[in-house]
């Protein structure tokens, strides 16, 4: 008999009420497969690797060897592959269908990117290899850097930040370094109320006080309120453009002029760059620093929550403060500027280092493959199709759901709706869970905070018209149910691997690691 997943583990049978279909012996339903935890099926003596005999030598560990089991169960290779393959089937993914998560840019992840990142010359390259042996890797970093500078019309760049929020931090530290270099340390960063949570969190992490700026009724930064908040204590402003309501900040140039007039800098959150890539360059809008999520606009995979990559482009004023390390091209040779070469290369203003090595090389290779594939013409088409698709959804559904900013004009790459017309007791969450039963990942919900019961829909350029039409039909249907007060919707999802999960209980008494059942009982 096969030993694969035959540990005797049984999923807990549901308390009933899900359907009239008869229960199965295993708890599985054909291709809907339950899967136990590794700790319930593996054991400490089992392994999925074969290792050679080791030479007999006297240990040189000064008696610090482990003297107790670690508690790490193993599985043989077929068991491990099956365990994780079964788990994978409980995930929704962009490979399965439209993933309209606003502000997250869930676009197709080309497999060419994966292939290129796995070339041994990139994947099997040590970060401290002597520089002569890394010329190809440095060339890729330089290539991506040059593309990002051209696409934004900004002269400076930091490639090392590891994700969007890390890029924000990089931008704010450059701003702070620039002020301090002038002997003018400032205290305050202005952040619009509609901003991503990372913006105020980053400003605080960088040692700044955060001051909020209200939005106008048409979902944009209130320019007068912003001007009133400006003072010699203000180091800068963090603007998301296009903003989190999916709208372009029409006053962007005026905002920049006002901020520059008091000696401040403009940080732009580039999370929504996909709306304008190849068509509008942030450097032409007065931006001093902006991070670019390679895992959004440039198609590197989200991987269930990372890794990302968040290079930051800089204006002339901030470029000298960009952190180490960076790549420079001297004639035909690429040079990696690190701590040791800072003084001699004239980079003494660099504000320091943000990561151990050189940033997310694996993401640079993927982004490079994407950029080269699209070219300047393809990227322009990307933003056009992304914006076209979002407006198509907005206009197709504005008569069904409240669309607070629809009257003010077109949206950019995401369309925003609210729960305003739903029946009493029905919320955005119900619509989201209803969409799951329709076979879609829900849109972003309850964000931005400036719209009550917000639903932020970002289709990206990845979808065909047929896919968009099917999604529009599904969302219309679910929204109509919410408006009509269809109580069955409150039970959604009913077809997902799990029904609604109790998040309150999870937070009240957190269970963050697996414990032996005996221990767990004893603890109670």
């Amino acid at each position, binding site marked *: 008999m096969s030993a694969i997943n035959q540990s005797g583990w049984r999923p807990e049978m549901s308390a009933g009420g899900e359907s009239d279909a008869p229960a199965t012996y295993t708890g599985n339903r054909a291709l809907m497969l339950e899967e136990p935890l590794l700790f319930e099926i593996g054991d400490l003596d089992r392994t999925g690797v074969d290792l050679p005999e080791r030479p007999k030598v006297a240990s040189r560990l000064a008696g610090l060897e482990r003297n107790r089991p670690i*508690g790490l169960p193993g599985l043989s290779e077929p068991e491990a592959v099956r365990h994780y393959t079964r788990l994978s089937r409980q995930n929704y993914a962009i490979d399965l269908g439209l993933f309209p998560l606003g502000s997250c840019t869930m676009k197709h992840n080309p497999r060419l990117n994966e292939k290129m990142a796995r070339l041994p010359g990139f994947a099997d390259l040590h970060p401290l290899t002597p520089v002569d042996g890394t010329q190809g890797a440095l060339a890729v970093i330089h290539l991506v850097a040059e*593309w990002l500078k051209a*696409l934004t019309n900004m002269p400076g760049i930091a490639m090392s930040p590891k994700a969007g929020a890390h890029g924000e931090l990089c931008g704010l530290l450059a701003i702070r370094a620039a002020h301090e270099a002038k002997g003018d340390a400032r205290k305050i960063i202005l952040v619009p109320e509609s901003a991503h949570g990372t913006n105020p969190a980053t400003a605080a992490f960088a040692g700044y006080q955060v001051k909020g700026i209200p939005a106008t009724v048409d979902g944009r930064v209130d320019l007068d309120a912003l001007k009133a908040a400006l003072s010699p204590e203000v180091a800068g402003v963090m603007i998301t453009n296009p903003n989190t309501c999916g709208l372009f900040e029409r006053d962007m140039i005026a905002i920049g002029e006002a901020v520059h007039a008091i000696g401040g800098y403009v940080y732009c959150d580039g999370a929504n760059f996909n709306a304008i890539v190849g068509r509008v360059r942030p450097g032409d809008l007065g931006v001093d620093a902006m991070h670019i999520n390679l895992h959004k606009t440039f198609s590197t995979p989200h991987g269930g929550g990372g890794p990302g*990559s968040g290079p930051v482009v800089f204006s002339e004023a901030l470029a000298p403060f960009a952190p180490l390390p960076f790549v420079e091209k001297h004639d035909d040779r690429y040079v990696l500027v690190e701590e040791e070469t800072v003084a001699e290369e004239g980079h003494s203003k660099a504000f320091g280092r943000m990561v151990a090595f050189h940033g997310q090389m694996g993401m640079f290779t993927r982004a490079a493959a994407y950029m080269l594939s699209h070219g300047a013409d393809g990227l322009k088409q990307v933003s056009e199709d992304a914006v076209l698709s979002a407006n198509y959804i*907005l206009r197709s559904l504005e008569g069904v759901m409240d669309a607070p900013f629809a009257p003010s004009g077109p949206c950019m790459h995401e369309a925003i709706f609210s729960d305003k017309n739903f029946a009493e007791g029905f919320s955005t969450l119900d619509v989201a869970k209803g969409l799951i039963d329709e076979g879609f990942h829900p849109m972003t919900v309850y964000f931005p905070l400036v719209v009550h019961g917000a639903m932020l829909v970002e289709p990206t350029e990845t979808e065909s018209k047929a896919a968009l039409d099917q999604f529009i039909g599904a969302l219309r249907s679910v929204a109509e149910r919410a408006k009509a007060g269809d109580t069955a919707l409150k039970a959604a999802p009913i077809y997902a691997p799990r029904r609604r999960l109790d998040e309150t209980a999870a937070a009240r008494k957190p269970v963050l690691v697996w414990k032996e059942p005996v221990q767990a009982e004893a603890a109670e």
Partner: protein
Amino acid sequence: MRYLPLQPEDRQAMLGVIGAKSIDDLFVDVPGAARLSGTVPGLPMHATELQVERQLGRLARMNQAAGDGPFFLGAGAYKHHVPASVDHIIQRGEFLTSYTPYQPEIAQGTLQALFEFQTQVARLYGCEVANASMYDGSTACWEAIVMARRITRRGKAILSGGLHPHYVSVCETMAKFTGDVLETALPKLDGTAEMEMARLIAAVDTETSCVVVQNPGILGRVADLSELAEACHAKGALLIAVVTEPVSLGLIRSPGEMGADIVVGEGQSIGVGLQFGGPYVGLFACAEKHVRQMPGRLAGETVDADGKRGFVLTLSTREQHIRREKATSNICTNSGLCALAFTVHMTLLGEKGLRDLAALNHALAVQAADRLARVPGVKVMDGAFFNEFTLTLPKPSRPVVREMARNGVLGGVSLGRLYPDGDGRENGLLVAVTETTTGEDVEALCGALEEALA
């Protein structure tokens, strides 16, 4: 364009529904001065898949990969054999192309894998809880210092001289802006782990929020942290342990068992390739009582409406999307797919595999150290080590490393590169040995060193 499904007639039909004449009508809110008339200048046009493969393939071949010859580089990034099934699993589209599991009903795969990851990391580190990953070891290290400041309400951190200099550099950069006080030190080639422990024990005082110590240290030295932990606790300070080579914990007692309060580190060795330094995966674990001060995402167990076990992201009131400027960290995207790679590799190893792998690394490293000690002019450091140790050469190691590399031997990391200030360290050469190192590789290194030192 192969990635764009919309056809010209689709676009026309959609513009019709929208009521716009052209795509330009949708960009009316962009100030005229910032509208480009054509494509972005200075960039090439689109390319075929084959053209892109050729261009990037040519660049890949210009690099000296770890597998190209004898290889001994470490210093925070290690070459280990990763089973083929790890890469297969992480390339499954359901993992690769999913998002952060904000909708748990259709993300149980990611969430359960993260729950398993957290449990594995906590057990490996000897701690009660672990989070769902950070960017890398260096950023996890800084986050741990910030966390210790929050817990102790003190602003001074003491960093061991054995902490990776890039980690120190990251912490110094951040501390410059946050006002945290860091006491740093440099490693000494003629010192020992015991001397450094004694120095730290003497340095910790009632102003100290935490002592940060890497084990094994940057020079490869392994230390018993128990007395240091006691000294920290006696002064109300926390001990933060940093582990850059997680394979070492298959053999060495965990920092948690030795009394560390927060354990962080780099997980790259397990499941994640070298990748020229990124993406890697930061590991972060601590005692359960500190979990609400912890940065990053956490997967937790719960039940669904039918009472079935399931997993969700939890304790998010610590995080930026809820707490905004009062969050414990600004981290959002973490290193999810690398965490999955770590967990799949760890599951394939299991307790037995990890212990055997660690023992193999150590045995091969001991053999190599003994062989290298016979190279004329080369001195191997004293004391305990795991799979990495420091040689002292009779002259600066940097040109030696370059010369060996030109001859196809990646012979180690020069301390001159890590510590440009000199002070005797420039003669140090850091040599890492793993299960991928063969006897012939060691002979090649000995030969290359003899030649370079002659």
